[in-house]
């Protein structure tokens, strides 16, 4: 009898051990598969949870937090509206949506935290951004009431330092219910558009950076000479392409590639695009991120150019593509990345805006790992582009972007738009070598050199003073 009782005992205790092993497996499995399940109201229904964490800038400014009633509050709402978005009980947008669960996850940490952390154990996690508040504020001020966007990126890491879209809205009003984002005829419709990443525009002459890159790849150098012209008529095309001032770009005989970029010579670049061929232009653009998915925290629209097949059968379209018109469409975010690649030996880093998730006491729980997004240019090509773009700002169309104490390199653009030309500026800036990249666009506002470049200068100055 003892023997059999012993056997029953062994079986039952073994089953207890099996339950323990099963528990270990099940918790691991459930944590990986069901933690953020949409039906898990723990993560989803704010009403059930005792509050969400804060969102802070890299310099510690709180840009989103809970108020006493556990509604979301945005202390500097309009300045960060398109990045943060908002979270209400039935609608979410921006980082408030992409990091919804992280903001409501309470710290569990290590066993010692658990034993010691009487208070900290119940604090939800904070999201720390890469954005630098003075730079963001400067961008917001500089663009003012105009329609457009500013994106500033740290070249070495891909960290986004400023991200502004204008016109903007106050997310506090969405939370309070006085602004309805779902109302298609409402005042918010225009303000809700994220012009930094979720809207594409023709890049105008900023696209000449891509064409110049294609020429450099094909063997040209900044000193290579091209025939100067006051107008260019592509084969089979009806309307000629002219320069901005309707004159020649140089002495009327030849211009170098560098000179052509410095004065943004339409006739030279239109002819260059046709000479290089549709395949060369399309592949240079695709290498630089056109026609590709761009990974971005809150989602980015796809930048595009007409396919090489269509361009090769239509030299007129190819010539216009060469000066960034026709069907070329790009987001300011991608243009900033292209500038960043020029300043980073041709490599664009993957853009990110969440530096880390941290406990309320500031201890990092998980951090972003900078990673390369793509090699957009060969290193030598990037070096040539950088030198030419420095000349653009030093003595070309981009002189308004000059900032004391820094070397600024860039390219202006003035793209045709239905309500007036879109003003563009893309560029890099740094003390000795390029450190940040910037893209500015102002819709329907005039020329890039007069409208966009000064905005860039203001933002770069704010970065210089803050850094």
């Amino acid at each position, binding site marked *: 009898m003892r*023997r*059999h009782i012993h056997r*029953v005992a062994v079986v*039952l205790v073994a*089953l*207890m051990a099996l339950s323990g092993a099963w*528990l270990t497996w099940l918790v691991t499995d459930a944590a990986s598969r069901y933690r953020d399940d949409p*039906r898990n109201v723990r993560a989803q229904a704010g009403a059930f949870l005792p509050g969400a964490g804060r969102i802070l800038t890299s310099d510690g400014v709180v840009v989103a937090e809970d108020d006493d009633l556990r509604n979301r509050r945005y202390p500097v709402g309009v300045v960060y509206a398109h990045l943060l978005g908002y979270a209400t009980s039935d609608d979410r947008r921006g980082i408030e949506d992409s990091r919804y669960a992280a903001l409501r996850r*309470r710290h569990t940490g290590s*066993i010692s935290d658990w034993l010691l952390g009487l208070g900290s154990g119940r604090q939800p996690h904070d999201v720390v951004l890469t954005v630098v508040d003075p730079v963001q504020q400067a961008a917001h001020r500089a663009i003012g009431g105009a329609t457009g966007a500013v994106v500033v990126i740290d070249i070495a890491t891909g960290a986004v330092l400023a991200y502004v879209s204008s016109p903007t809205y106050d997310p506090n009003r969405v939370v309070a219910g006085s602004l309805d984002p779902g109302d298609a005829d409402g005042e918010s419709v225009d303000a809700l558009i994220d012009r930094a990443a979720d809207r594409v525009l023709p890049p105008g002459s900023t696209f000449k950076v891509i064409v110049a890159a294609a020429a450099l790849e094909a063997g040209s150098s900044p000193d290579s000479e091209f025939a100067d012209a006051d107008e260019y008529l592509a084969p089979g095309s009806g309307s000629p392409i002219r320069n901005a001032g309707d004159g020649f770009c140089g002495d009327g005989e030849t211009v170098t590639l560098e000179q052509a970029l410095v004065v943004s010579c339409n006739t030279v670049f239109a002819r260059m695009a046709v000479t290089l061929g549709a395949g060369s232009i399309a592949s240079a653009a695709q290498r630089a991120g056109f026609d590709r998915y761009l990974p971005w925290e809150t989602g980015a629209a796809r930048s595009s150019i007409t396919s090489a097949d269509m361009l090769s059968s239509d030299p007129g379209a190819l010539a216009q593509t060469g000066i960034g018109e026709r069907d070329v469409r790009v987001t300011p975010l991608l243009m900033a990345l292209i500038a960043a690649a020029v300043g980073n030996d041709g490599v664009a880093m993957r853009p990110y805006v969440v530096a880390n998730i941290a406990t309320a006491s500031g201890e990092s729980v998980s951090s972003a790992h900078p990673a390369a997004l793509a090699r957009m240019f060969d290193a030598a090509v990037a070096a040539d582009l950088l030198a030419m773009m420095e000349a653009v700002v030093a003595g070309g169309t981009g002189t308004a972007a000059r900032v004391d104490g820094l070397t600024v390199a860039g390219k202006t653009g003035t793209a045709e738009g239905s309500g007036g030309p879109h003003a563009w500026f893309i560029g890099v800036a740094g003390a000795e070598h390029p450190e940040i990249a910037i893209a500015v666009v102002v819709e329907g506002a005039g020329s890039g050199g007069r409208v966009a470049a000064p905005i860039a200068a203001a933002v770069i100055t704010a970065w210089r003073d803050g850094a």
Partner: protein
Amino acid sequence: MTKRTEALLVVLSAAIAAAGTALVTVTTSAAITLDTLAAGATHTAAFGALLVGFRRWAPGASRLLLPLVGFITAVGSIEVFRIDPDLGRLQRWWLLLAASIGLLTLRFLRRRGIGALRRYRYLFLVGALALLALPLLPGGLPVGGATVNGARLWVRVAFGDRSLSFQPGEGAKVLIVVFLASYLADRRRALTEMPRSLGPVRLPEPRQLLPVLLGFAVAFLVLVYQRDLGASLLLFVVVVALLYAATGRGTYLASGAALIAGGAFAAVTSFSHVATRVDAWLHPFDDYATGGYQVAQGIFALAEGGLVGAGLGSGSPWLIPAAATDYVFVAIVEELGMAGGLALLAAFAMLIAVGFGIALRATDAFRSLLAAGLTIVLAVQTLLIIGGVLRMLPLTGITLPFVSYGGSSLLANVVVISLLGRISHEERT
């Protein structure tokens, strides 16, 4: 273990109950309320009284029992209080009542010893069957049955406009084990002999199989009339396991397994509530809105728990239906994590090992089988409900001993511990 260590560990378990309650009140209401004092005082009073009772009336009892039960009860009372403070406060009164019943049990056996129970075995059997039948009384009388969550296993006693509910099945399981231990101690020779054979299978005299069939019949009736999957399975598994322990005959295990399989098949095909349970077990997310909701919420709670849990008071265990009763183990894992769940499982495993140790050292067959039977009840009940909420088995509504909210369960399990203590005392004298 010295007496002093035992006393210290019991005090420690009361300290855990108080500290855990304090943590819950701090986290949920940012203040340490009188509940902390009440939890500590109740735990100290109940287990202090049991400790004194053991010292007086069963001084040779295993000193491992009370510290383990004290620890398990402390964890349970903290989590029940956390899920529903009102239930937690009510549970404190149940704990005091349970301790008094435990003391009465020890006092009753002080002279006569555990062997006295053998004399009353048919009384116990009749009592157990009566208790099982009690919920079937029509409602509306001063004493009547009541249906909760589709299972009719409650009895409601009315005092004027107030009423008190209890589950008589919890008491019945103890009485049935006492009866079985006593019956099997007398009959195990006859049950061990297998004079007949059917092909290669050796069988005992058919009439000797009667107790298995009777156990199965009672279990099945419980299933049919009370819709209580857990209690009926527990009952039957205990009968089969004890028969095997007493006789060492695999025939009983095989026929028991066959009857469980057949019964399960019949239940799934003919009772919709059983079929729903099985569906929810296998595919909780297919039928999320209705049948699978509870199981799915349990999975979410486990996911939230992770390694060390959300922290006491920081999870959302009340989202799981029946969090304080059937799902209390999952609620504990949500807030104390895999680490807390494993610690609790380890405590149960030790308690069960101690129980079987007492059975193996017992001086005669009755004591040995009684200790084994009581331990098997604890073990199988624990495994059924933990396996159920962890989806190793279909979920059967049954309490987790000493942890789930429930007065009848706590009462019955404290009696089990008192009996085990008394048996271990008698081994030493």
